[in-house]
């Protein structure tokens, strides 16, 4: 039993990883068939992973309601919103062309205003931070603020009234800022390959989560 709990997943990760790695470099038909089959299967697994996220969310709020944890009233709101949308969405369907159902109505009048406004409040916080928090504490922070101020005005219609500002902002975006992000990207590429190698050779196991 111990084999299945610990050794088999690591061996499976290694086999799947090596097979998919070499499938990219071998144009022959059997390798391409294996590669295409693997993708079909993992798309279906990805669907189940999506559903797991939903189930754990409802599970979390149900335990909060059952245990009467303070603030469980809001969990009741979440669960009622969930069941109403689920019933309407499953039976009437959503996003059907030229058929408008209650599901589309809820998307338009509940989901859009709530999520869009939640992030729109950030504009107020940015303004208050601009007055009270954004200080040139160090030389680096002042360099950042100078570049930020040039871009804030330079990339907006009002910037055209200041000569050469939009060209300077465009140059900053296309050259120094681009080259720094190029350096970061190259670092991210190496980190990505290193992570993949660790997963294939079973050195990295955090993604498997607990349960052992």
């Amino acid at each position, binding site marked *: 039993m111990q084999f299945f709990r610990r050794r088999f997943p690591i061996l499976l990760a290694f086999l799947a990883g090596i097979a998919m*790695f070499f499938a990219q470099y*071998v144009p022959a038909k059997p390798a391409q068939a294996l590669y295409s089959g693997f993708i079909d299967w993992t798309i279906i697994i990805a669907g189940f992973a999506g559903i797991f996220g939903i189930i754990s969310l409802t599970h979390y709020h149900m335990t909060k309601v059952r245990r009467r944890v303070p603030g469980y009233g809001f969990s009741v709101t979440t669960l009622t919103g969930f069941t109403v949308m689920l019933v309407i969405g499953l039976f009437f369907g959503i996003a059907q062309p030229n058929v408008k159902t209650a599901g589309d109505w809820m998307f338009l009048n509940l989901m859009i205003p709530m999520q869009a406004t939640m992030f729109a409040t950030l504009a107020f916080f940015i303004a208050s931070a601009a007055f009270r928090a954004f200080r040139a504490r160090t030389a680096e922070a002042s360099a950042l603020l100078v570049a930020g101020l040039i871009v804030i005005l330079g990339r907006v219609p009002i910037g055209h009234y200041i000569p050469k500002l939009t060209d300077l902002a465009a140059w900053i975006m296309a050259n120094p800022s681009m080259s720094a992000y190029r350096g970061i990207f190259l*670092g991210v590429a190496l980190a990505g390959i290193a992570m993949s190698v660790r997963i294939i050779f079973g050195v990295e196991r955090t993604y498997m989560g607990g349960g052992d």
Partner: protein
Amino acid sequence: MARLNLNRLTRIAVVLTATVLFLLARSAFAQEETGEGAEPVGAGPGVLEPVPLTPPPAEEAPPPVVFPQPQNIHATDLPNDNGTGVALLFDKAAAENDRTYYTVSIALSAGGPFAEATSFGAAGNFKENFNKYYPGFYWFGRFRNPNTVHVAPITEIVTGVDEQGRPKHEPLTTGKTYYLKLAIEQDGETMELPQVFEAVPKQDWFNTALSNNFLFAVIFGAIILFFIARARRDPNLFIRKIAGLEAVDEAIGRATEMGKPILYLNGMSDLSSLSTIAALNILGRVSRRVANYESQLTVPCRDPVVLTVAQEIVKQGYADAGRPDAFNADSIFFLTSDQFSYAAAVSGIMMRDRPSANFFMGYYYAESLILAETGASTGAIQIAATDSATQLPFFITTCDYTLIGEELYASSAYLSREPLLLGSLKGQDMGKAFMMIVLLVCTILLTCGVVFVKELFRALG
């Protein structure tokens, strides 16, 4: 030993930068026009003889058409494919000009009906235009003698007609012999060469166009595994001092004088993300430092699993500092898992308890601005360490010190000395060292006009 040759590495890097500047000064050196990211040479027309400018003779019969005689015509399997392609190659004939057209026809048997497979002008279809099939020539051959060999790849054959009467194309079948013929059209008249060429498409088991990709993947993967193994044997591989960690110790020192609590956040994501693990490693060090002062360490969490791990780490930190009694479990508590309510609740703690130091470690999303702004307005010392590029600008302008991107992982490896983190950090450093050296060397070579070096790094995938 690794430490020694790395110093020599810096001296080489300095020398190389000096030569770059020297060369820049003398940049009047003969330089081919190789604009930034110029397209590979060869797509343009080959060197053609200048067309004679003498006026054509009056009503005399037009001169007999001179057909170009391509040499060394041969048919082979198309390399780097899954066995559904053949190719006809022949050298560029001297008499070619932009009115020459080649047509290759294919048939299932030597005498069988030949159907036209592909036709192209003399200016195109050179070997270097098909870098996917002939990468070797593309990388090394083409600069010496550009545009000399014509290639006609054929991957489909017409087999009958589909229901709308349009010819149905089918890929060639592996292992079947196909017969090719070449026809030349010059100034409107065509002549078909009598010879018939045979070719058998076969499957290829390694795509040579991806050799630079494969080489880098194998070598870099081996380096990573080598350093992880080495880090297991000797955990104190050299990592440079991280300035951010000094700032953390200094902030704790200044904060504990005032006796007010210290606030520590582990980021918004759960244990599956590297940045949360790094934040928890730094939490261990902070709790060891804070243990021998009176000030209280407050750690509000957003994820139940991270909460349990954080409690474990802080208790261990207090025990290591010899003050297990000072540890108070409910100073590490679960707040809420919703993004904005968590930020609002933490801002409430900042306004109420007025902590003297705030630590924002781990991965953050749009709500980080609320945390950093409230913290700055309470006048606390603030240190941030995150790898979320979109939130870094706000941390840098509102915090006293910010660890950027990979510094978060480096400090976690520096503190925990865990072979997995340490080994991959060193391995990635080797990758960066390789990039730095190649950047300098190749720039110098390119400035001097050696162009093919850049094509070695072109992805032909």
